[in-house]
């Protein structure tokens, strides 16, 4: 079911463009979240990153998957800065390194790449579930996808489940006490606000899942 080889660099660009629309639509909310418990730049970091990735289109459409992902990773890393630059840069850098991805990518392999990527992000940021960061979205989503592959769940069902998982993870950050990232400096005052990185990650994951659901 999730084994057809269908994912090329056009998939990356198409999703980046859709993500751009969704992020722009939710920009005021994300901005506010990082102003409440961070330094207010998260939305600009994310928007700048997406724009830079989309601008890569003419270059990466002729590249192999590993090279394309690496270009994206470098662009994110150098173009965003801040926590999200390092974290999302690590995500893509790791995905680029997964073996044999230039031989064609099916959904199963794509999920493995993402799972590896999230593991690297976890190492980079040293944050786990429950610390009020994007990891509260990324780790549950990675687990959900891994389980889906193991249990060979129907792709569309898995996407729906993933959307739910991401949303739940995002919402869970609201009442958590931040122990990692800039929000941790607030101590108890960090409670009661959704983590901006969790919100942006959830929106991006939802967008990709929706786009798969709609194909």
């Amino acid at each position, binding site marked *: 079911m999730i084994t057809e080889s269908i994912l090329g660099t056009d998939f990356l660009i198409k999703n980046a463009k859709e993500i751009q629309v969704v992020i722009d639509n939710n920009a005021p909310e994300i901005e506010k979240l990082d*102003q409440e418990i961070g330094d*207010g*730049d998260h939305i600009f970091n994310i928007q700048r990153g997406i724009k830079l990735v989309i601008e890569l289109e003419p270059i990466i459409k002729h590249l192999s998957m590993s090279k394309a992902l690496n270009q994206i990773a470098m662009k994110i890393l*150098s173009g965003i800065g801040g*926590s999200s*630059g*390092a974290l999302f840069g690590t995500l893509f850098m790791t995905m680029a390194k997964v073996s044999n991805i230039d031989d064609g990518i099916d959904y199963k392999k794509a999920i493995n790449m993402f799972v590896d990527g999230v593991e690297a992000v976890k190492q980079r940021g040293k944050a786990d579930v429950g610390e009020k960061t994007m990891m509260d979205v990324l780790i549950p989503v990675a687990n959900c996808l891994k389980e889906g592959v193991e249990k060979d769940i129907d792709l569309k069902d898995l996407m729906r489940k993933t959307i739910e998982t991401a949303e739940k993870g995002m919402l869970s950050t609201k009442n958590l006490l931040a122990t990692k990232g*800039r929000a*941790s*400096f607030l101590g108890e005052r960090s409670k009661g606000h959704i983590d901006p990185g969790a919100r942006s990650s959830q929106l991006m994951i939802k967008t990709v899942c929706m786009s798969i659901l709609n194909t």
Partner: protein
Amino acid sequence: MKKFLNSTDDFLKESLQGFGAAHKDIISCHYNPNIITRSKATKKGKVVIISGGGSGHEPMHGGFVGYGMLDAACPGFVFSSPSPDQMIAASEKVEGGAGILFIVKNYSGDIMNFQMASEMITGASETVLINDDVAVEDSSYTTGRRGVAATVIVEKIVGSLAETGGSLKECKILGDKVNRNSGSMGVAFSSCTVPAAGKPTFKLGPDEMEFGVGIHGEPGRRRDKVQPAQEITNELLGAIIEDLKLENNGEILLFVNGMGGTPLTELYLLYDNAKKTLDNKNIKIARSLVGNYCTSLEMQGASLTITKLDQELKKHWDSPVHTAAMRWGL
């Protein structure tokens, strides 16, 4: 938002260009990636000191590049950590063959980006992590405390050691020591406005202050009514003194730092009030620094930093320095 700019996209570039042109005898600005290096090449065998962080804290760090202090600075976007390619480019440009010391303020973004850079560069490197903000509770299982104005003191003192032949290891040890010997805390009377955001990061009532504010406008210990300067001073000093476990008769450096929008007269008034308190406690101000050195854009507010001094620290504080923002003995 009222700022001198043409477009928020070009803000940083034009500002760096102006900085580069105004101080071309001391520094050079390079673009894509953005880095600021000394205009003179590093002398062989010197440990190079590289710092960096989000922009918006000027003169930190670019204003501290030059003889006796930093070899290079990596300015990120406003309040966003620089990216690894900046640190990599900087380390290539100023390499002296004796290793690199990174001075990094304790923020997740900065740590991760500097770490990635360290992993990617080939030569030896060490990192001094600054976490002097006593407003935030310290804890090893969280991110810990923020790095704020003591960064200036660390950069001056370690810069002097590197200039006078200190090894990478010695520089790392001294940097950690200065950081350990330093405590800071600040208060804000107004927010700042990140150019890209176009509106204030937070709102304070006409009689409110943010006590223990961070240098990016992060909330502090509490929001409170504005107090007389002497009371603010006493509370800031109280927290710092407790944290540093300052003893009677100890010698310190007192650093009254403006957040960008507070005039010098008020900073000197805070110095006066702090001196009264310290005199009462028999704590001796052996060295002083007063001014806008570690700012938060145009925020109105100030922070106090105390660094415990010994002969070694005093020697390196007094040694000549020639940067855009700090200059003496040359």
